[in-house]
């Protein structure tokens, strides 16, 4: 089976996010005064062939732990949906 996988990778709470802060200042300077707590992370999309959703999830978690995220300073969130065949 094929799955569409999306992984969101974000810094852990409390850790400094210089990129987010800089974007926040830039938004402020452009007049978007209402924006706050800006944080920038990564999104990784991929196609995965696996036996079922469960084994896909196990594999993606391993990918995250080993490569996609840095467990020391990042957290990840996985979404898996079967690929629509058209």
């Amino acid at each position, binding site marked *: 089976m094929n799955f569409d996988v999306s992984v969101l990778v974000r810094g852990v709470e*409390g850790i*400094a996010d*210089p990129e987010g802060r800089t974007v926040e*200042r830039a938004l402020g300077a452009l007049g978007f005064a209402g924006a706050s707590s800006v944080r920038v992370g990564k999104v990784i999309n991929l196609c995965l062939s696996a036996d079922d959703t469960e084994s896909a999830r196990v594999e993606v978690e391993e990918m995250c732990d*080993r490569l996609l995220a840095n467990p020391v*300073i990042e957290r990840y969130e996985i979404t898996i949906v079967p690929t629509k065949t058209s």
Partner: protein
Amino acid sequence: MPLTDITQLISDDRRHLPLGLLDEEYRSIIEILGRVPSDVELAMYSVMWSEHCSYKSSRIHLGRLPTKAKHVLVGPGENAGVIDVGDGVAVALRIESHNHPSFIEPYQGAATGVGGILRDIFTMGARPIALMDPLFVGPLEDAHSRYLLDGIVRGIGGYGNSVGVPTVGGQITFDRSYERNPLVNVFCLGVLPVDRLVLGQASGAGNLCVLLGSRTGRDGIGGVSVLASAGFRDDEGGSKRPSVQVGDPYEEKRLIEACLELLDAKLVVGIQDLGGAGLACATSETAARGGVGMDVDVRAVPRREPGMSAIEVMTSESQERMLAIITPSAVDQVLEVCRRWEIEATIVATVTGVDENGIGHLRVLDGPGGAVLADVPAKSLADDAPLYDRPMVAPPDLAERLDGGLANALVSPDYSEDLASMLVDPAWIYRQYDHQLFVNTIFAPGEADATLLRLAGPGIERSQKGLAMSSDANPAWCATDPRRGTRATVAESALNVSATGATPLALVNCLNFGNPEHPQVMWELSESIDGMAEACDALAIPVVGGNVSFYNESAGRDIDPTPTVAVIGLIDIIKHRPPSIGWRDGDFVVLLGERSANAAGSRWARDLHGIRSGQIDEVNLVIHRALCEFVSACVRDEAALEIAPDLVHGLHTIGDGGLGVALAEMCIASGIGCAVDQIVDHRELFSESVSRVLVATLCPTELISAARAKGLRAMEIGTVGGDRLIVSDLVDLKLEDLGARFHDRIDEALGEVASH
């Protein structure tokens, strides 16, 4: 308080233990204060009296290093050493380690190491213009070591490139010793007009302290001690305290520009970076140096996170912060400069006078006029940490370790293959670093024995002078005999600098050692310092700064003693590019310096054949100094004279890897082979005796007689030409193969991305 009471009190009150303070240390604190310390006080003592901040185990040994010379403006003890280089210009230099953080998170650990050393330099009023990064990791065959190296190099590049300071040199050592404890040492050099020199000192009661830069978060709390969360009242702690610090090179860049602008405008009285132990350190050190007191309003400190305690605010190691001491009349102008650079600036403390006993107090207040959370003599935090003369003992098997018999009895079936397998091109590392910014780089990494820069920088009058710098370490030499190994390390570094035509001026060191509670480690440190002192004395190179990193151990094993040194030198006139590694077709190859046929202590014996025992030759420092002076003079003439004498076409010092590797690197650099026929045997080919230089010349007779006139040995050993490296009876290699082995080593091992 009566003694018996104190003893009872200490055994009842266990607060100090999780903070890493010993009973005796707690006793000293009670004696200093004449009472039981508050939580905030205790936390400040624990970070300030940590090994990292107080040098309590090494201080009594460091005193043996020579530190004086006419041109030394500031020696050890300040944030950086400062050297006068003439015409109203000075350079500031310093080296620091960021070993443990780089093991936990290699990218951020290395990046924040760069950030920290930069602040040490610009806090002196100098503009940072050069970084070097000596690195020590496990073997390339080990996946985790590859991951660490990849992250460390990305981190140094990520921060250094972005902050706008070129990384112009360094070194890389692969060894098992570092598999679970990589070493990341970072050197920085800055230039300044002498009259911009400032010290990290507070003065003038009523003056104000402005905190500049990033907001304070829970980063690296207790990073310098073993401060455990049990020491805090709010015990949900742990997860709220990421001890990994995240660097922001963009903030640092603006901080550099803002601080230099403040100093140029003479708006600050004193300035100090916030590093280990954060605000506690910056406030107590500046007050102690100036002999004054300080009232810190802990509530005024801008925070990144809600709910931070006073202890957290005082000891946080959040990056990219500086403390400037200014007069009240300068406030508006200071805030204006900071506003333009988008630097947050907040008044957080006031300088106070001394009490009736002449003591300046550091007080931490909960809001202006609020509760006094701490009130301690500032000097007691900064200067009164206990000093330890820890037990030392030589390793029981010293005699065996020193015996070079095994190494010198080794033979190998294929010396060509041995030589080829020892070649490593560090270009994979320095290609990822901006090493050209400021267009000062005359010799980039890999081009010569030392990096050579024009002595120039934004705001510094251009001249014809050049600055040479080399960072060196050879833990294998030091593992068997730390004293001899360190002497040789200093000697090598001085010779590297001399080989660009410069005269060595000053040295800074980073002493990376194991656990100081192990008597053998203390012996290694003491021996190493003695070796450094001997070499520096004999070569007339003052030590102007240093850093000691202890507790480098993994799986209970101490690392090999790893003293890193960086030597800088000055060359007065550069009209042409001086000769460097490489040669021309038809040159003759001359070996300058002592012959050696001692394979002991060499990389060949150790890495290829597994023999770690035995030591390299002792450096004869008198001869070595003569060699440095001779080589420097020859190269200097090539660089300075209107019509260069053309005596030296190329040169390369011999060190790690020996004569064989040096010849191979000359071939690769120029794309021309050579035929050498005066090498006695493989031991001479791989000996790492340091007082030797290969010179390529068209006039061997002249060169040899000039050297002999200085009491140096010199002989012609071969000729340049062809497309092979040939050493009679030992080596015959095609240039093409040599080049491929050299260039591909790290590239192939690292590929694109390394996983955890």
